[in-house]
């Protein structure tokens, strides 16, 4: 992009911002940065410009950059859920492409700001991650790069097992409240206020905690109830972790909680942004060439795939369908649901505020849509991957199931004192899809690394309850006797 194009882009952004506002989108102040491709790909690999260093990010950076250099795929932009909202545009994009991207990220930012799933994400994560990265660098100097890297290897392997739900957050707040009461025994306005929102200074409350109080906390390894947040359980109860190691794991957990809503709303969020970049770009004055270029770019983005679900494609289709059905309700819908015509946009804004992917698909992926889009399920049959199901309810339910927990297996800590020996027992909530056993066996040593004692994971293999155990040297499996 040359200076002339930058000036033109700035002017367009001004226009588009106004258009978006008129459409009712509500976003944070925007900070657009034009960057060269290797910077965009760095951010893409790390998920955040300021995140800590780790070889696995270098690996994905290399892979993404290579695919870009070979023309196999490209990232147009990267947008950060923060206030103000940072959007990184690719310098190599054409002016029209960057205009489209700007329209697209305005809608993303609206979604970040207003969707309920994102309510508790830290909007200052850019700075928080920078501070965390600093701490980790400090630990590297103090404890050695190797030691920190090995811990992060283990932490990243387990980091997906957190509990981002409201229940999880409430339960934790309750525990904190109890701890506070038992320590101070007095009324505390912050914890007792009904509208208790998280402040960045919450952790200051534990500063008064004495060394003895901390010591007392350690032995309570028995899980009171099944705990989904394995990371938190390990951080709080692991008998072997040093204080700095708990800190590193807390950093990984906090970052995962920040990214979690994006995993839970991929289809909605991308669909929403695509819907709005279409609407905004239609209002812009485009030359003929630009209009053709835009059409090409847009159709590339929503190109469906035979072997996966393109979130842009499916998301856009569902949003447009919602708009259509609430604008022109059927006779039946009018009578039974008292649905007034012309409520399309209002309904869309309501959905964008309240739902996540699971609810979005379950509630709004209709029979008609599945047939129109020709969605199906496929499976490995012998050596081939074949279509095995086209019945709309089965397709919808399977899609919904694949989005549960962000597509990550659900595991619970059942016992932190298994065999009365302080061993860790984790159970996989089996719902018909088996785990990748090779990966499970290779993840066990990481679990052992952070727990320090024997670890067990129970799951189902070919219809039989099976327990995988790791004792620091080997992973063994045995069947549970019926």
């Amino acid at each position, binding site marked *: 992009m040359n200076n002339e194009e930058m000036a033109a882009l700035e002017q367009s952004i001004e226009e588009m911002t106004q258009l978006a506002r008129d459409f009712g989108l509500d976003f944070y102040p925007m900070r657009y940065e034009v960057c060269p491709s290797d910077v965009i790909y760095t951010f893409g690999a790390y998920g955040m410009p300021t995140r800590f260093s780790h070889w*696995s990010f270098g690996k994905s950076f290399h892979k993404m950059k290579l695919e870009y250099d070979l023309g196999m795929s*490209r990232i147009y932009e990267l947008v950060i859920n923060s206030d103000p909202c940072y959007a990184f545009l690719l310098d190599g994009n054409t002016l029209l492409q960057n205009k489209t991207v700007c329209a697209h990220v305005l809608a993303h930012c609206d979604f970040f700001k207003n969707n309920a799933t994102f309510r508790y994400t830290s909007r200052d994560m850019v700075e928080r991650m920078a501070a965390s990265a600093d701490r980790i660098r400090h630990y590297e100097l103090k404890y050695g790069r190797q030691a920190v890297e090995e811990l992060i290897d283990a932490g990243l392997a387990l980091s997906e097992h957190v509990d981002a739900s409201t229940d999880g957050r409430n339960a934790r707040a309750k525990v904190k409240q109890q701890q506070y009461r038992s320590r101070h025994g007095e009324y505390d306005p912050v914890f007792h206020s009904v509208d208790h929102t998280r402040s960045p200074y919450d952790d200051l409350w534990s500063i008064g905690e004495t060394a003895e109080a901390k010591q007392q906390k350690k032995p309570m390894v028995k899980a009171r109830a099944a705990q989904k947040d394995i990371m938190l359980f390990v951080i709080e109860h692991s008998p072997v972790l040093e204080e700095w190691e708990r800190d590193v794991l807390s950093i990984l957990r906090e970052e995962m909680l920040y990214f979690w809503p994006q995993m839970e709303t991929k289809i909605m969020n991308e669909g929403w942004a695509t819907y709005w970049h279409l609407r905004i770009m239609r209002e812009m004055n485009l030359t003929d060439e630009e209009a053709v270029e835009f059409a090409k770019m847009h159709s590339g983005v929503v190109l469906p795939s035979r*072997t996966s679900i393109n979130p842009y494609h499916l998301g856009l289709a569902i949003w447009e369908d919602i708009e259509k059905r609430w604008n022109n309700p059927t006779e039946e819908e009018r009578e039974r649901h008292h649905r007034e015509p012309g409520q399309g946009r209002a309904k869309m804004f309501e959905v964008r505020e309240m739902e996540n992917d699971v609810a979005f698909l379950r509630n709004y992926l209709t029979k008609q849509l599945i047939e129109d889009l020709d969605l199906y399920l*496929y499976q490995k049959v012998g050596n081939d991957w074949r279509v095995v199901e*086209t019945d709309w309810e089965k397709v919808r339910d*399977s899609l919904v199931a694949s989005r549960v927990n962000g597509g990550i297996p659900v595991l619970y800590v059942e016992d932190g004192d298994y065999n009365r020996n302080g061993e860790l027992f984790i159970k996989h909530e089996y719902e018909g899809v088996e*785990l*990748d056993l090779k990966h499970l066996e290779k993840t066990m040593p990481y679990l052992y690394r952070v727990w320090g004692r024997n670890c067990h994971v129970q799951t189902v293999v070919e219809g039989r309850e099976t327990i995988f155990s790791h004792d620091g040297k080997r992973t063994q499996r045995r069947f549970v006797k019926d």
Partner: protein
Amino acid sequence: MSNAYFSLQREDWSLHRKGQQDQDRHRDKVKQAIKDNLADIVSDESLIMSNGRKIVKVPIRSLEEYRIRYNFQKGRHAGTGQGDSQVGDVIAQGRPDKQQAGKGEGAGEQPGLDYTEANVSLEDIETLLFNELELPDLADKTPDQIVAESFEFRDVRKKGLSGNIDKKRTLLESIRRNARIGSNKAQILPDDLRYKTWEDVEEPDSNAVILAMMDLSGSMGLFEKYCARTFFFWMTRFLRTKYEHVHIRYIAHHTEAHEVSEEHFFTKGESGGTICSSVYDFALRMIEREYPPDRYNIYPIHFSDGDNLTSDNEKCVKLVRELSEKSQMLGYAEVNQYSRNSTMMNAFSKLDIPEFRKFVIRDKSEVYAALKHFFSRRDGVKSA
């Protein structure tokens, strides 16, 4: 910016190297993993069979990012058809191509399919492997071809070949001259030109000959021959890479020994009984005929399964003694998968000659240890 609701900036990112730094770290780890897995890699069939392909795929387990995740192969997945999909349609063979259609924004890599096989060039592996190897006790022997010719650029002159212009010095001269006469013009006159010139250098090199001897009798099964050939494969590559004047002679034997071509040695099988003394005898005669020990470093290496004609063992011991005197190092490797009681090893185990090294290979990953055992300065790696 005038507008507080947005700003558009382009900054200088040229010093931003974070991705590259971590990429280097990853590369280091791949190298380390190759080093750690050298034993497995060295005996990997696909590598030996690569026929000069430059890039080989090496499974490097330690670099996969393991997670608890679903088994992609066993699950059902959703796809989008073109409007007429029927149950039973084949949509992909083998692995479905998960290349995201629509060049998506987020780094939405599907977890089901991440699969790590590092592409490693044969050269990388060789560099790592050969760094650890050398011909033991290589001694200066009287000159035959001991001079290796090479050249070094050591001098700068005003006349020379235009391909060898020394750009930096030429520019310096030009700047100097211009400064002397006080002109601001940047021009290069013929007088400024400087050329790099070379001198012939003679580097002394030692003569060495390797006698690669292999038992090709009927008792040498697939596994035995595989191990022996893997060993000789790397040995050959190693010697050709690192030493300029090394002869390799291939001798095969069953009850009789004869010299064979390299190709025959690596590809053909023979049959019959085993009389190992035949090959030692053949080697001794060859040394007498062509490689006088005062002019050559001699390294006979013999691979067998140890299943020798018992009555022949005594003769073998005698010949090995004789051969050791003439050699810098005499190697005997036995491929013995099931720890059989080997008559040869029994006979040899009583021998205590510093030049004589023996090694037992039980598993194909031990080929690497054997290489290190024979091609190291001292008798470092003890055979099990």
